């Protein structure tokens, strides 16, 4: 039913911002609307602030959610049960917060960036939910279009409009706080990769510090060719590290001997957006010489193992063990 409302109201509109009729207190903790939130939105956890009703979609989230045609559900909870016959409206506003006429639950006087999602919906209870796809909210059908929203940080505001129960005028409305989706497609600066070296099963990578405390770094490495400037969220089958605060790291997960690896580094900002890939350096993993091999290669006489020194070692080892046992037994007798 709600989807029908959405489809009807969205028809003919390509506006990507959404704003609804909404009350004025953050977290919607008001006398009339006490909750406004988004349910089950699959985004980077640190970008979802349930208390403020603010959610940020970074580049990867935006691409994934739109390309997967993920559903998004907005939920409001009224402080009181509505009266019979009460209606509500939901409006979506793109960009600023003045594109919609929030004083009316219908389509009156909206700007071009305003979209009426629900018009005169029946209030059947205190909980109101509106479900649609992320793409419909953003007004795009492909993840690539996340960069075509009209800016690098674009807000989409969803507001709920309900009858004002504090007014004696039945035409007065109350507008909830906005639920704000911010699409952030601003990539951070690309770091400069300095050096890559390989051991038998380890690759060491060094890069320049960008002198920005808000940035971390991630290393991508692959047996298949990487291209400088590529968008990291589009890579598949490429290994990467966790976010790193250092300017060098060693990677060994999945690294095998005798393979040519392509390695690049990206920076990562506070919302999880990654820069494009840095220049790509290569390194070939090859056998290395550990300490024992180096010792023997240098002409060392120790052969290792226990058998070669068995007579002496076994004898002395026995002495030590017998000594320890004697000490222990004397202690037990002493305790007794």
């Amino acid at each position, binding site marked *: 039913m709600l989807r029908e409302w959405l489809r009807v109201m969205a028809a003919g509109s390509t506006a990507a911002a959404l704003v609804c009729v909404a009350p004025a207190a953050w977290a919607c903790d008001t006398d009339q609307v006490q909750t406004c939130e988004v349910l089950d939105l699959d985004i980077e956890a640190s970008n979802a602030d349930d208390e403020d009703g603010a959610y940020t979609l970074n580049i990867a989230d935006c691409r994934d959610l739109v390309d997967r045609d993920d559903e998004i559900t907005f939920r409001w909870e009224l402080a009181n049960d509505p009266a019979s016959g009460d209606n509500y409206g939901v409006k979506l506003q793109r960009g600023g917060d003045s594109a919609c006429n929030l004083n009316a639950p219908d389509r009156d006087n909206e700007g071009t960036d305003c979209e009426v999602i629900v018009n005169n919906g029946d209030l059947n209870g205190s909980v109101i939910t509106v479900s649609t796809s992320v793409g419909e909210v953003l007004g795009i059908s492909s993840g690539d279009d996340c960069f075509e929203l009209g800016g690098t940080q674009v807000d989409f505001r969803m507001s709920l409009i309900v009858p004002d129960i504090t007014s004696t005028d039945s035409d007065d409305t109350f507008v909830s706080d906005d639920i704000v989706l911010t699409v952030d497609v601003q990539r951070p600066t690309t770091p400069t990769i300095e050096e890559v070296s390989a*051991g*038998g099963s380890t690759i060491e990578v060094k890069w320049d510090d960008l002198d920005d405390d808000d940035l971390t770094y991630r290393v991508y490495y692959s047996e298949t060719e990487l291209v400088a400037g590529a968008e990291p969220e589009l890579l598949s089958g490429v290994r990467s590290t966790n976010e790193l605060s250092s300017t060098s790291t060693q990677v060994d997960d999945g690294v095998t001997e005798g393979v040519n690896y392509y390695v690049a580094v990206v920076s990562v900002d506070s919302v999880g957006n990654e820069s494009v890939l840095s220049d790509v350096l290569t390194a070939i993993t090859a056998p290395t010489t*550990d*300490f024992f091999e*180096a010792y023997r290669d240098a002409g060392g006489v120790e052969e290792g193992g226990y058998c070669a*020194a068995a007579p002496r070692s076994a004898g002395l080892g026995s*002495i030590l063990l017998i000594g320890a046992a004697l000490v222990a037994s004397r*202690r037990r007798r002493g305790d007794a």
Partner: protein
Amino acid sequence: MRLVLLTLLAAALVAPASALADDPYATPITSLVEIRLSAFDPAIDDEFDGEGPYEAIFNNRAPYGLEIEYDRQIYRGIGSFAIGFHAGWTRVKGSALAEDGSRSPDETRLVTFPLRLSAVYRFDWFQERFNVPLVLSLKAGLDSVLWSIKGEDGVSDWEDADGTSFTGRGMTNGWHAAIGLHLNLDWFAPGMARSFDVNAGVNNTYLFAEYMMTSINDFGGANSWDLSENKAVFGIAFEF
């Protein structure tokens, strides 16, 4: 040494007889435990001319290793005589070498587990008789050092050009001798020391420094490397 002797003499002349030694409520002394800290700096490269493999890979690092010693006293009179057992652990890490001899990102490690059996003499007569807070210790004994070398895929395991297999694990034996000086902390806080004895049975607590010589080369074995060290050892000891 001269300073130590003078200190002992001066303390003996001016100090009253040990209060703790005469304390009828003091618990009997049977054992001593030492927590020992020392740098690990083996003589592995001594068998090579110029830079040896230890220096090349570990850059002559001398990381600190930990050792625990338990002494069981079998005689108390003019000093004490004990049988001691030590167990320790050290680890030094370095970069494996690439084919061109440069350092690679791969790590290689030498881990040792020294085990020692000691005869220990502690000259604590001045402490017991005159409350001088210094105790001289002498130790000598036999050692077995278990060791393990790790490469990129765990314990080093490889074949040389002749097809002979090698595993980076073994045991090397030898002997040690040590001289140490223990400073009795009880002397500074006798009330606390008495309480420590009553509550935990610890009669004396020491800070100590020790000079230890080890010869760990299978007594000059022809096929043994040299893990010998001459080193300073520091730590804390509890006598109970």
